[in-house]
């Protein structure tokens, strides 16, 4: 019998492995800080996880696809098993994508998982970004992480674009042609950039291999770095949380990483992967066999980019065709202006956190989230931006809107041209009013309680609805938010009687601050005095 004695002398195998690793990697100190790290629970916190998991899925399926895909534009004749295209001339890129789709068992599934996951990845990033935006999670100390996330979104869009251009099918080739046309519009260097990118005249024989290395190496490499940095910062800053009982700016309330969060988050990876796999089994995406290989003189109707490029498509479609010819040179404003507005639309949302922190002059750390209604100006700005984005998406699909809803394409184009300017303003004003309405409702609930749905008849015949007072937890949650005061200009004369003039920057800042937090931008929240007055006088009215 050796067991009892041996166990005392020898640690279990797992522990010995851990000891070995600790002696070399220091894992115990790492685990001490992180194994029981607390994660707050809120459904919206899973949006970032969807991004992370779809990225992992894209990497895994992408590696598989590279085993079969030939990034070459050498012309070959198709002899694969898809009969309608047999004998056709096509690039090796297209032929190998056909091979993956029809001759590699499971190849179509992996290709479709890859493409679906890419669409979901970008969508999840946008929605995750909106969650962070509308709850004010981007505030100090998380501004840098906001920028990392923003860069991931932009790089994700371009990785997607270079990816769906690789099969060299009729639709993607048309997208690349559009890109070439846009590049040509750049003043002075446009033709040079185009020649250098395509290795000569469009389409040439170089863009697929070049896009391939950008798509599988350059952009994902940068994204992987940003993603790791993003996650390290999430760990370092700890998660934000919504205000509520026991939740303060100085703590984080939730459940520990081991076991609850690990099971939930780890399980969620499988949920996301499972759903995307089932989707890829049921719903076809980018059926290149139906479109055929690319030829620059052919096109299909209803040509659409993947959804995340739709707003740039909208810009290019609704822009009037302005061209200025001066001294033997052409300024192609009709294409150049959309090309310039494209990054500006994205930048508008990216810089907002910095504008807000400058306007408020707030240098504190914020770990408690805002409910969107309690930051009406921010919420209104976000909705205005989304409106802008959606208007452009409509513009990008103006042909589909026209055919599906039997509308005139010219009318839709004019609608988008006007809504591009008017839509965000209307959305801003309307959203701010809705936020104020919701604030009023919260105040009413705090002071008068919850509508119980019970009707009481008073002795003199009047019917009233019984309001139930809120619990202290609810009262605290509804009144925990801050209501910032607008900045004031310092007096023109300081305490020593010396005149000082506020600079233009300071005046702008005060003006913006009034617009953000001044009169009419919030409903003053209920005070304890108001509450006590009403509750103590309950019997009297």
């Amino acid at each position, binding site marked *: 019998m050796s067991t009892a004695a041996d166990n005392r002398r020898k640690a279990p195998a797992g522990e010995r492995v851990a000891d070995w690793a600790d002696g070399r990697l220091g894992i115990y100190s790492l685990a001490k800080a992180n194994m029981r790290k*607390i994660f707050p629970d809120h459904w919206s916190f899973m949006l970032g996880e969807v991004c992370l998991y779809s990225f992992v899925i894209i990497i895994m399926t992408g590696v598989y696809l590279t085993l079969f895909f030939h990034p070459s534009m050498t*012309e070959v004749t198709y002899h694969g098993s898809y009969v309608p295209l047999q004998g056709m001339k096509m690039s090796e890129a297209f032929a190998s994508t056909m091979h993956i789709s029809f001759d590699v068992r*499971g190849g179509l599934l992996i290709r479709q998982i890859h493409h679906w996951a890419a669409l979901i990845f970008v969508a999840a990033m946008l929605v995750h970004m909106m969650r962070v935006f509308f709850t004010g999670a981007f505030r100090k100390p998380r501004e840098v992480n906001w920028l990392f996330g923003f860069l991931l979104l932009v790089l994700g869009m371009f990785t997607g674009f270079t990816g769906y251009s690789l099969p060299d099918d009729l639709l993607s080739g*048309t997208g690349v042609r*559009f890109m070439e*046309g846009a590049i*040509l*519009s750049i003043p*002075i260097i446009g*033709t*040079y950039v185009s*020649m250098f990118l395509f290795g*000569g*005249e*469009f*389409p040439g024989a170089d863009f697929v291999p070049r896009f391939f290395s950008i798509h599988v190496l350059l952009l994902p490499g940068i994204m992987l770095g940003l993603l790791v940095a993003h996650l390290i910062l999430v760990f370092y800053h700890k998660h934000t949380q919504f205000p509520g*009982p*026991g*939740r303060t*700016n*100085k703590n*984080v*309330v939730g*459940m520990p990483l081991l076991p609850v969060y690990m*099971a939930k988050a780890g*399980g*969620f990876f*499988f*949920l996301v*992967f*499972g759903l995307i796999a*089932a*989707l*890829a*089994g*049921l719903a076809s995406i980018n059926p290149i066999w139906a479109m055929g290989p690319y030829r*620059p003189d052919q*096109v*299909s109707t209803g*040509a659409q980019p993947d959804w995340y490029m739709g707003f740039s498509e909208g810009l*290019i*479609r609704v822009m009037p*065709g302005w*061209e200025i*010819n001066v001294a033997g040179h*052409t300024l*192609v404003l*009709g*294409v150049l202006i959309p090309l310039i507005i494209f990054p500006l639309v994205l930048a508008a949302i990216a810089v907002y956190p910095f504008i807000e922190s400058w306007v408020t002059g707030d240098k504190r*750390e914020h770990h408690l989230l805002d409910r969107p209604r309690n930051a009406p100006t921010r919420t209104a700005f976000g909705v205005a931006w989304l409106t802008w984005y959606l208007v452009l998406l409509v513009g990008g699909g*103006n*042909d589909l809107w026209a055919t599906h809803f039997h509308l005139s394409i010219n009318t839709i*184009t004019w609608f988008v041209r006007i809504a591009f300017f008017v839509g965000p303003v209307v959305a801003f004003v309307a959203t701010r009013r809705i936020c104020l309405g919701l604030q009023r409702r919260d105040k009413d609930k*705090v002071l008068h309680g919850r509508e119980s749905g019970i009707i009481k008849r008073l002795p003199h015949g009047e019917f009233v609805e019984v309001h139930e007072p809120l619990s*202290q*937890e609810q009262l*605290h949650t509804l*009144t925990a938010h801050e209501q910032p005061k607008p900045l004031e200009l310092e007096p023109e004369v300081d305490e020593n009687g010396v005149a000082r003039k506020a600079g233009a920057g300071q005046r702008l800042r005060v003006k913006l601050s009034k617009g953000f937090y001044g009169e009419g931008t919030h409903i003053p929240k209920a005070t*304890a005095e108001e509450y006590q007055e009403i*509750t103590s006088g309950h019997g009297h009215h």
Partner: protein
Amino acid sequence: MSSQDIPEETLPSKQGEHEGAVAAAGDPFADPGIPPHEPRIQDIDERAARRSERVVAFLFVLSMLATVGFIAAYVSLPVDKNIFVFPIGHISALNFSLGLTLGVALFCIGAGAVHWARTLMSDVEVADDRHPIEAAPEVKAKVMADFAAGAEESGFGRRKLIRNTMFGALALVPLSGVVLLRDLGPLPGTKLRKTAWSEGKMLINQNTQLPLRPEDIQVGSLTFAMPEGLKEEDEDFQKQIAKAALMIVRLRPENIKDKRELDWSADGIVAFSKICTHVGCPISLYEQQTHHVLCPCHQSTFDLSDGGRVIFGPAGHALPQLRIKVNDKGYLEAMGDFAEPVGPAFWERG
């Protein structure tokens, strides 16, 4: 379930007092602290917990079965078999089975893990303290002092010659990388101004690959043509057709509003570049009543009876027209290249 079966000490009222549930006196809005833990049915009833356990195990087993199904489908189903699945239609049997089994195998692992976490793992909320991100003043002072010492020891500020030449060297060295990009492609030159068309080249019907005669083209029809001598097998076919693609329609001469267009036509047959002047999509939709053509990519609309003028959409200038005539053998032929660059505008276009 009756409460008699549940051990006394696991009932809510018997559990330890909850954390920090003391409200600040007098302030109705004060933070009452983390609310007391509400036990789940699985916390107090072992039978419910066992039911949860069975659900989790069932999901994991289902996942195993689905993986077996995946392998079975991979091995047994031919790659080219199609099946009808309502309401999707005819789809690849293999792709459908692999996607569904893989989906179920993965989803069940996730569902099992999440159900386990939600019903059986502790759901007691605990609070962790945050620590300020900013370093304490003494830490900052130490770092500043260290940096000053390091900078001083390097002599970076004092020995300006070293500093300036180093900046110079570092600024210049990336130039090598920039220079290396030169051979990515040729210089533009006049490449974008010339197409495969030249005087005397016949117009070849793209569908039949035969030279076009005027009588082949009916009023109201739209014909696509390419220059004589260009073959689909040619190595540079894609590059050439990207500029040379031609669109031919026949109008009644009295319907042609533009004088130059009439001069450049032959028997009412006009030839325009098929490449949109917006960003270069091939134009392919022709409305015979109005003589308008529409680019399906961005909906630029051109009037082929009026010099290819833009009448709607984002294109900035008219479609270039190719001057054609009927040669002595009765075929249509070009009288030269396009007079202006085809396709999208660019800086040097003028």
